[in-house]
């Protein structure tokens, strides 16, 4: 087991660097020249030859003339900078955002917190609803109530997240006027402590509802499928044959076994929500989260921020896949990993 985990972590690191190299190469396709940006104002004050010389010197100083791999290594922190210092991602230097005029590290703290709260709360609510619902559906499989819920879930997972978002803004914000249409806090408010938290949650409520709604369908189906699979097992038949009550069969024998495979798919679902769903939701609701930050950074071509965020997403995704696989082996000992 330890060997397996070690192997997976090494593998993860390799994949991370491969992806980051790819991202860096893609990022370098964009024609941008920070040296030119700095030198452009001096063009009129200097002689052309002198300007050219200074420009090239600056390019050398910035390390722009180095080959791609070398620049990547510097950016990552494998190689010392021109000044001889290690200043890369690995040393915690995520770059400098041109649109915010601040270091990337300082910018992403608040959005990260918002995104984590958003995802955490919506995940808990979704699970609290879907697990009982899925079990109910499996137990009452092919009855009217199950068919109705199944039809509802198809609608739920077919509709694009942003469409559900727009629909819910219409229902809850415009029509019923329960929630605000967007934003992260009441404009001009100076709440502190619990009030501030309450205000933030109030603004986050509608995005959470939308995320829960879009997540309901897929998870309910997963739980239902797993539960139905378990209910068709021989040991359930045995339990029934012994004359156990149906309640005992379901709540003592079946559902724990059914939830084992479900727990792994929760992980995968969370990753997809974190990287995809919440990105769309944050943009739709103008919520200050990582997704919206990424979106606005791409729109303002703030590529150092984009690159840092992209690395973050890749890491989340890779660690998520690793945790999924590990949880799979943990919850189900039948899965042999050390072949």
């Amino acid at each position, binding site marked *: 087991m330890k060997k397996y985990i070690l192997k997976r972590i090494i593998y993860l690191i390799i*994949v991370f660097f*491969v*992806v980051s190299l790819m*991202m860096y190469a*893609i*990022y370098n*396709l*964009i024609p941008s020249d920070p040296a030119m940006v700095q030198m452009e104002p001096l063009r009129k004050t200097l002689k052309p030859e002198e300007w050219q010389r200074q420009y090239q010197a600056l390019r050398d100083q910035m390390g722009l003339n180095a080959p791609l791999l070398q620049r990547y290594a510097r950016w990552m922190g494998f190689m010392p900078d021109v000044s001889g210092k290690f200043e890369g991602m690995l040393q915690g230097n995520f770059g400098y955002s041109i649109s915010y005029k601040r270091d990337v590290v300082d910018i992403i703290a608040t959005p990260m917190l918002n995104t984590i709260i958003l995802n955490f709360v919506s995940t808990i609510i979704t699970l609290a609803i879907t697990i009982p619902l899925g079990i109910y559906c499996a137990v009452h499989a092919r009855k009217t109530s199950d068919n109705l819920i199944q*039809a509802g879930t*198809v*609608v739920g*997972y*077919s*509709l*694009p*997240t*942003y*469409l559900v*978002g*727009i*629909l819910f*803004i*219409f229902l809850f*914000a*415009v*029509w019923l006027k329960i929630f605000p*249409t*967007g934003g992260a806090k009441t404009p001009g408010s100076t709440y502190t402590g619990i009030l501030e938290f309450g205000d933030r949650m109030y603004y986050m409520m509608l995005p959470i509802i939308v995320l829960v709604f879009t997540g309901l369908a897929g998870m309910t189906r997963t739980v239902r499928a797993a539960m139905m699979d378990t209910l*068709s097992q021989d040991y359930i038949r045995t339990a029934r044959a012994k004359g156990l009550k149906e309640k005992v069969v379901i709540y003592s024998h079946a559902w724990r076994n059914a939830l084992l495979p479900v727990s792994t798919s929760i992980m995968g679902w969370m*990753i*997809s929500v974190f*990287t*995809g769903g919440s*990105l*769309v939701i944050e*943009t*739709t*609701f103008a919520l200050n989260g990582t997704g919206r930050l*990424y*979106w606005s950074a*791409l*729109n303002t*071509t703030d590529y150092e921020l*984009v690159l840092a*965020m*992209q690395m973050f*997403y*890749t890491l*989340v*995704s*890779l660690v998520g*896949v690793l945790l999924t696989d590990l949880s799979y082996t943990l919850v189900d000992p039948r899965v042999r990993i050390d072949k």
Partner: protein
Amino acid sequence: MSENQKNTTNGSAKQKKEFFLSRWIKRLLFPNKELDIYAEEQMQSPMRMVIRNFFSNPMSVIALCVFIMIALFVFIAPHFVKLDLGEQDSTLVFVSPGYDMMKVPADLQKNGVADISVGRNYSVGADKEGNVYVWGKSKVTKVIDLADIPDNVKNAKIVKVAAGSDHVLALDNKGTVYAWGNNRLRQTTLPSELMTNNRSHEFGIRAIYASDQFSLVITDDNRAILWGNENFADLSYKADELDGHVVDGAVTNTAYVLLTDDGRVVCGSNNASTPVTKIPAAAAFRVKAITGSSNTAAALKEDGSVVVWGASTKGEDKIPAFSSKAVEIEGGRYHYTARLEDGSVVSWGSNRYKQLNVPADVTKSNIEKMYVGSFQNYAIDTDGKIHTWGLKGFLLGTDGLGRDVYARLVNGGKMTMTIGALSVVIEMIIGIILGGIAGYFGGVVDMIIMRIAEVVSSMPFIPFAMILSAVMGTKVTVEQRMYIIMVILGILSWPGLCRLVRAQMFAQREMEYVVAAKALGVKEGKIIFSHIIPNVMSVCLVSITLAFGTSMLTESTLSYLGFGVPLPTPTWGNMLTGANNSIIIQNYWWNWLFVGAIFGVACICINLIGDSLRDALDPKANGR
């Protein structure tokens, strides 16, 4: 699944040569006759089983039908509903759905028309008994509706009406002028000399005109009175020079011209700067009537000829040759309509909304009077019948740039479906080839391909697609960008299909028919792609169906976020961009509801079809 092969050949050598897809489609559409109960155990092919299961579920049949209908609709309708990408008109912004712009009220028709005036997307009419009617898109803002005719207007006997872009003027038989509508720029605040009890001496009103944000009144003692937003239009008036001589006037969007009693067209304002106020020499004598379009003005001369001047952009100045003398001329937004002495009616200018297509019965009947404005034409014949032609309205309304939502919906659907389908094809090609190779050969090849698949599938999909689209799509045309999106979607989504094909391959490669093919010396490539793959296609079908739905969804999400197909080319995704603000959601519901509904239904249908196919393929669900 080897029975599958045996079954289909059925002794005929010809069938064997057919391409696997055509054979497959044939079997899907024309299944063989149902076998009897004794033969079933041996001969029922899996594919037929799937089809039987699929069609036994009414839900999936409905979903399939609805989806085929939507697909046919978005691929056929664009041939009839052409999309003009450059189309936009500030006067057609956020027009609500419905064909009611020229729906003349029955009472007006019955009582006889005294006057009609066409405003922006609505019309006002007065009948011979003095009642006023408003029809069309009369809602200006959430609270102001031009159809809310004030009580004093309802009580008065109205003889003349004038419709501006957001205000209406009415004149009663006693010479009183009424105004209602949007007063944000003082359009409806009458100047004091027009107030009946405030007039310095007795005078009547000869004509009233309303334009965008200003109004013009011609009195019967030959003066012009102007009011409205002076920042928008030059409303100065050379009173000392022109008072006592003005007999008629005409308004364009931002300027006005006057007709004097000696048949001259003059510019009434002091500091004329717009092209309309530079009156050509031909319009300076023997002019009978004048009228205005949006940016030009026209004069009808006593000899029956027409002169047009101003900033003509859509062919307003291209006057056709008349078959006889013109006796009446009226201007719309970008067109003019003239009635000739021989009874025929001629229109010229822009024909974007069919405002030039004069119906045949207009020429046949005896037209007495015409009322033209915006994109609409009304002609009254001697029997009092009203003939109309021009823009009736928009089936699904217009968006924030005045573009027809229906045309964009249809063409956007074609775009979204095409991108979805082609990206699935790319995904299929990559997934099946790599999955087939990995599964058949195994070993190192399998390891390498699976590692690549893992790298690709561990990339966060939407953020990665966004950055690829942002980086690669900067310097390309819309068309190229569309293909780039397809390739991005295809390249990022193949691992799932690849894994499926690989797993199927593992099971199939040990089967007898593969061994037989190997023994016969069939090349490996041929074994994979023409022997094994056709047998696993039925399993892949589910994955492909669902992938099509996912591709459409992803494309629309990317477009919605602004990293898909760029505007103005419509897709179902980017039509919803900007719909997430409460003003549009609430007031302009037609901008998101129709697109959302058709897209939602299409996605639901695809997923239902995919689910039913999966159930149909699942041997446990067969109930045997």
